[in-house]
């Protein structure tokens, strides 16, 4: 794609912090946000650990100054908080000045309210306001409302755990094709009984801290989070004399076409996604300085992704780590959370540690970066892989 698409702002809320600064502080101090679940009543409480944002819904409503009759799902509220930070960070004051849109990723959407009031909807008047917030697009509509984005391109992607990475990809395409001058991209997902029990039935939830790329990994910790980035065209960057945080340099999407939930043994889809992204970025594998891996700590993902990384990078393997041990797996938001972390890595020339790693996997000798490391970084490659075979890679760079 030659020139990159500029990132001029970002915002995040996750289990390790309520804004970009807090997240960065937790990352460099190795402070993980994995605990027992508190905000959801579930019989699985003692069998799982989660990356939970400790605000209750009432606290989030207060934080956003929403009226009592609001019908925001938790996903929408988390998304709105991160989106507002991203807009402020990008110094956007006049939305109407440029063609501005939103592309968000979510998989849970308003399921948190649906599962709470499923049968009550039929008989109780009060919760019925949430019926319309169930569908996945609602959280994005609410974010647009919070930011005052009207009469514009506002859409939502749901490709399971690669949703937000795909939102970044579409956003970059919309800027490059001139459809939009500025686009907010990212994703949001809250914890829900639906996903807790869903992943439980797949027997891939760990009962303790998740350990990406470790031989004895026991599965993932679910997390909740939202993160957004502001992408702007060269025209806007120039006209407004914008400070650019980093660039979206390349992206690739492929389908494993192997199995509804499992990744292929050799990571065909992930390999293709990384290769496409490198090609679009015009980079060789040896020019990637750090890989922020998907690394969910499930048996299947880490083996498949590890093999794919080896296939693409071979002897040129740079430092890599998964930050899921900090945040848990935040599903549709993961690609955006890790995009923010990738940009932070570039800005500060640091590689965040892959916590909880002890024993290398017996299938290969890949060892993640386990300590915080300072290194001059120019490019970061970030993977997001999901159900339905969806594999996505985004490459971020310091220079356009």
């Amino acid at each position: 794609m030659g020139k990159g698409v500029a990132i001029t702002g970002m915002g995040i809320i996750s289990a390790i912090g309520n804004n970009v600064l807090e997240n960065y502080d937790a990352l460099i101090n190795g402070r993980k946000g994995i605990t027992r679940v508190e905000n959801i009543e579930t019989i699985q409480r003692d069998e799982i650990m989660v990356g939970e944002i400790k605000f209750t819904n009432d606290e989030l409503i207060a934080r956003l100054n929403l009226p009592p009759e609001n019908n925001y799902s938790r996903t929408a509220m988390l998304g709105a908080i991160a989106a507002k930070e991203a807009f402020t960070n990008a110094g956007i004051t006049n939305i109407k000045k440029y063609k501005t849109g939103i592309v968000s990723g979510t998989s849970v959407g308003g399921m948190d309210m649906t599962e709470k009031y499923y049968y009550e909807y039929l008989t109780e008047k009060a919760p019925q306001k949430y019926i319309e917030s169930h569908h996945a697009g609602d959280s994005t509509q609410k974010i647009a409302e919070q930011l005052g984005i009207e009469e514009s391109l506002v859409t939502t992607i749901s490709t399971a755990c690669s949703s937000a990475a795909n939102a970044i990809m579409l956003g970059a395409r919309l800027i490059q094709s001139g459809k939009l001058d500025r686009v907010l991209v990212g994703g949001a997902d809250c914890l829900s009984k639906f996903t807790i029990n869903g992943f439980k039935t797949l027997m891939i939830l760990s009962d303790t801290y998740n350990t990406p790329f470790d031989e004895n990994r026991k599965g993932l910790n679910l997390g909740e989070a939202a993160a957004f980035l502001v992408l702007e065209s060269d025209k806007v960057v120039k006209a407004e004399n914008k400070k650019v945080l980093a660039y979206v340099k390349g992206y690739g999407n492929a389908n494993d076409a192997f199995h509804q939930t499992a990744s292929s043994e050799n990571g065909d889809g992930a390999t293709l996604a990384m290769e496409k992204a490198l090609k679009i970025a015009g980079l060789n594998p040896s020019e990637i300085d750090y890989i922020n891996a998907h690394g969910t700590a499930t048996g299947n993902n880490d083996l498949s992704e590890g093999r794919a990384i080896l296939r693409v990078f071979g002897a040129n393997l740079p430092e890599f780590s998964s930050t899921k041990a900090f945040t848990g797996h935040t599903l549709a938001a993961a690609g955006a959370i890790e995009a923010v972390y990738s940009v932070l890595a570039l800005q500060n020339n640091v590689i965040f540690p892959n916590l909880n790693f002890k024993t290398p996997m017996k299938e290969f000798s890949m060892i993640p970066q386990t300590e915080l490391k300072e290194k001059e970084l120019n490019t970061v490659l970030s993977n997001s892989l999901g159900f339905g075979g969806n594999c996505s890679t985004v490459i971020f760079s310091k220079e356009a």
Partner: protein
Amino acid sequence: MSELKEELKAKIIEQLNLEDVSVAEIADDDALFGDGLGLDSIDALELIVMLDKDYGIRLSDPKEGRKIFESVQVMADYIEEHRTK
């Protein structure tokens, strides 16, 4: 024992929605996975829940399931030995 095997076959067909298969078509020693009945990892998880719910047998590692679900015969033997209900 043979009653249990018939029961298992019927349950497998129903639980896994094998519309085009009948109880008579599944032999006791037929492989359930791979080239046999063609079941996959999702089916294995379904069968693990069935063991728990109907026979009171809890498996914590899905890999264990693969051995137990080799055939209806192996499954029945395992259930006979470990059932709590």
